[in-house]
């Protein structure tokens, strides 16, 4: 064991040789599916209520997500920042949506991507990068 958490939610409880000490699904209390639907890797998450007090059932990872999503981030980005599998992050997000701390927006489905205006906006944006 190399580092004990000092209470900072960003601190990773890791051992370089052993890998993660806390198995990802301990944080989700064994749950592998979020409480609501399927959450895509590029589903966007934004915090709508940043005031998390001592809510029962919410751990440090929940708090970190609420802090991170001050600006909209995708599930993939949250997972990368927390160094957790995307599946774990989905479950934690389900908790936060249920309690009204974050809002999520599913990406456009394949059929919606047909929208010509979207293509034009992306092309213009890419050209002016």
């Amino acid at each position, binding site marked *: 064991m190399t580092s004990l958490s000092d209470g900072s939610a960003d601190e990773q409880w890791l051992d370089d040789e052993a890998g993660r000490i806390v198995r990802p699904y301990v944080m989700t209390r064994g749950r592998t599916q979020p409480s609501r639907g399927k959450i895509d890797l*590029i589903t966007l998450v934004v915090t709508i*209520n940043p005031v998390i007090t001592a809510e029962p059932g919410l751990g440090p990872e929940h708090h970190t997500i609420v802090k991170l999503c001050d600006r909209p981030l995708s599930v993939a980005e949250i997972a990368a920042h927390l160094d957790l599998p995307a599946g774990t992050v989905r479950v934690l997000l389900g908790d936060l949506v249920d309690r009204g701390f974050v809002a999520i927006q599913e990406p456009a489905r394949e059929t919606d991507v047909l929208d010509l205006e979207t*293509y034009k906006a992306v092309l213009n944006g890419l050209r002016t990068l």
Partner: protein
Amino acid sequence: MDYGRSSRDVGRAKLPTAIKILIAGGFGVGKTTMVGSVSETRPLRTEETLTDRGVGVDDLSGIEAKKTTTVAMDFGRISIGEDHVLYLFGTPGQERFWFVWDELALGAMGAVVIADTRRLADCFPSVDYFERRGTPFIVAVNCFEGARQYDIEEIRMAVDLGPSTPVVLCDARRRESSKNVLVTLVEHAMQTRTSSSQEPATR
């Protein structure tokens, strides 16, 4: 969407639309390099844990328990104005992770298949996959130093691509070059989708 109670002034704010583009190709062909050269941040890595979907994956005959496989994907982000965010995902290079592609490809605007002329066959699985799935894609030939330069038509023939699939030369390390690859892909995807939107997918 109802954003519910809010203590900040984002209650009615519109979140941007997230769009996914896949960067595929063989191992070491420059997928992460391209993601990194054009992204606004250095590439991030995410792990996706998949359960019981593997076909021929880690065959543990006789073990009845569900199998879990973790794959790592590198990805980057390009914000386009306030309304759109582009996410570029490098597909896992090994063939045994094909089943992840289905989840990744769902809803993707299109795909770039990066090819290296010294190992052209490495891009065949990606080309096959996107052709079969009907995902708009282009082939970007990463011009590695020291590799013999081929004519675009030679490459098109060698990969057995239809005339409508664009083939471009690129240097995945250069931002401007990677940007041009993405522009070509989005133009192609726009053309493909808008011209075929009336027909049901038959492939």
